[in-house]
């Protein structure tokens, strides 16, 4: 059964913009992206909205709905109260291109700086082997769809533009953690996580975990484990002494990588 939905959609570009009112007919079972498409089809043909899979797997339709970073294709209209106005804005941590489309290239620049997987040399038979428990450990991190909702909600860059050059953000701490927990990887990224990725700027407020559409426990399973590994290397006098006594810093499995482009 159809009904009229009141919406406020931000329209504009970097030079300015405003929330524009729309009333659009929607059907039961539809999502916010459906309503935006109907506005596009019937009232504002030039409304810019990025989307692709419409199944919560491509991460393209990230927007802020009633102030919360969410995927427009996964936000059911039934989650709102009857008569409630639904407000849709672009991601507020990134430069706006037009309407609901933002420039997320900051994330790609950060991604370039993460040292890639560096496996140990292949064994004699040429086959790498991993046990199932080690494979499963990183599986959660590989569910990331790069929607960048965790990045946009993170107050370190959302509220402080000046931190962007020195902070990688939750999505990339996930990447650091995935590689650091990989049994075949030989790089030691702990110093980079501290110095270059700025993990010390994170104050564990767990917003990244709250907004992740894949339900990845970013804070508990990636950021805090990385913070603890950084503490092992940089802040724990006992592990520091252990490294010095057993000369662990000089073993081949403790190589500190150079970042791509260095």
């Amino acid at each position: 059964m159809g009904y009229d939905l009141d919406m406020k959609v931000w329209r504009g570009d970097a030079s300015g913009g405003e929330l524009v009112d729309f009333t659009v007919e929607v059907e039961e079972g539809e999502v916010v992206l459906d309503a935006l498409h109907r506005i596009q089809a019937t009232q504002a043909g030039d409304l810019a909205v990025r989307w692709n899979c419409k199944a919560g797997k491509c991460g393209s339709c990230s927007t802020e709905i009633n102030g919360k970073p969410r995927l427009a294709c996964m936000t059911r209209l039934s989650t709102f109260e009857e008569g409630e106005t639904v407000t849709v804005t672009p991601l507020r941590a990134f430069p706006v291109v037009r309407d609901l489309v933002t420039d997320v290239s900051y994330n790609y620049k950060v991604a370039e700086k993460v040292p890639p997987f560096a496996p140990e040399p292949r064994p004699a038979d040429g086959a790498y082997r991993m046990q199932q428990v080690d494979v499963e450990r990183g599986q959660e991190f590989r569910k990331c769809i790069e929607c960048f909702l965790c990045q946009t909600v993170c107050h370190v860059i959302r509220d402080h533009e000046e931190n962007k050059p020195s902070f990688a953000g939750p999505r990339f701490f996930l990447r650091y953690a995935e590689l650091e927990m990989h049994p075949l990887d030989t790089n030691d990224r702990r110093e980079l996580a501290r110095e270059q990725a700025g993990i010390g700027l994170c104050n564990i407020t767990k917003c990244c975990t709250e907004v992740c559409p894949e339900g990845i426990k970013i804070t508990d399973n990636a950021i805090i484990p990385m913070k603890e590994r950084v503490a092992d290397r940089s802040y724990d006098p006992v592990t520091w002494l252990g490294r010095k006594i057993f000369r662990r810093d000089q073993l081949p499995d403790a190589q500190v990588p150079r970042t791509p482009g260095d």
Partner: protein
Amino acid sequence: MAAPTGTQSPTRARITARSLRTDRWWVYPSFTALVLLAFVVYATYRAFVGEHYFIEPYLTPLYSPCVTTECVEGSAHLGTWVGDWWPLSPAVLILIIPLSLRLTCYYYRKAYYRSFWMSPPACAVAEPHRRYTGETRFPLILQNIHRYALYLALAYNVLLTYDAVMSFKSPEGEWGHMGLGSLILVVNAVLLGLYSLSCHSCRHIIGGRLRSFSKHPVRYRAWGMVSVLNGRHAQLAWASLVWVAFTDFYIWMVASGTWSDPRFF
């Protein structure tokens, strides 16, 4: 005037509202601040009041272990080896340990950064601070000592377990007796023990720091068990905090003669 930053940066969508959230996002930080403040006020009063903290066989967790010469007779299970140089209440000396664990705890960091420092007050609600350096500088860089606070807290938990066991004596010192206070002290020791074991640093030390689980099967199993507890860390943090206050209040009431302790056997 400094250039606008954050969501008001010139390249971002021009939206002046601090947040467009329509839900009651302020409930969590307000409630958290209220409960934490209430506990701090209560614990501070009880720590400094210096009386009604011991009645055979119960010693309140806020004063355990009582190790200064100021301790009332029978309450110093470990002796008064600190002597009389400590000018404040004996509770203040010992509360440094659980306080350091909770102050540096990854869960409480979320709670108090949101509730007191408003950094941020809630997700996607702009924080009021112009500058932000997180935990990269003094004093917040000291959050990295969390594992040492954990080691001390684990020893403290052993002492609280000892107190719970001692509570199975009668007021005359005979074993094999139990009162409602014994039950309360056992629950207190269990909750505090689980809270410490569910800590993120504990999870890291037990097995999280390993690159390969398959090469360390025993530590992997232990890590799995701690991970289950870790999933309940926030609930355990609250439950143990409230129960400590309740335990102290119960013993305070019994020690002051306001009510008597029901004895089961």
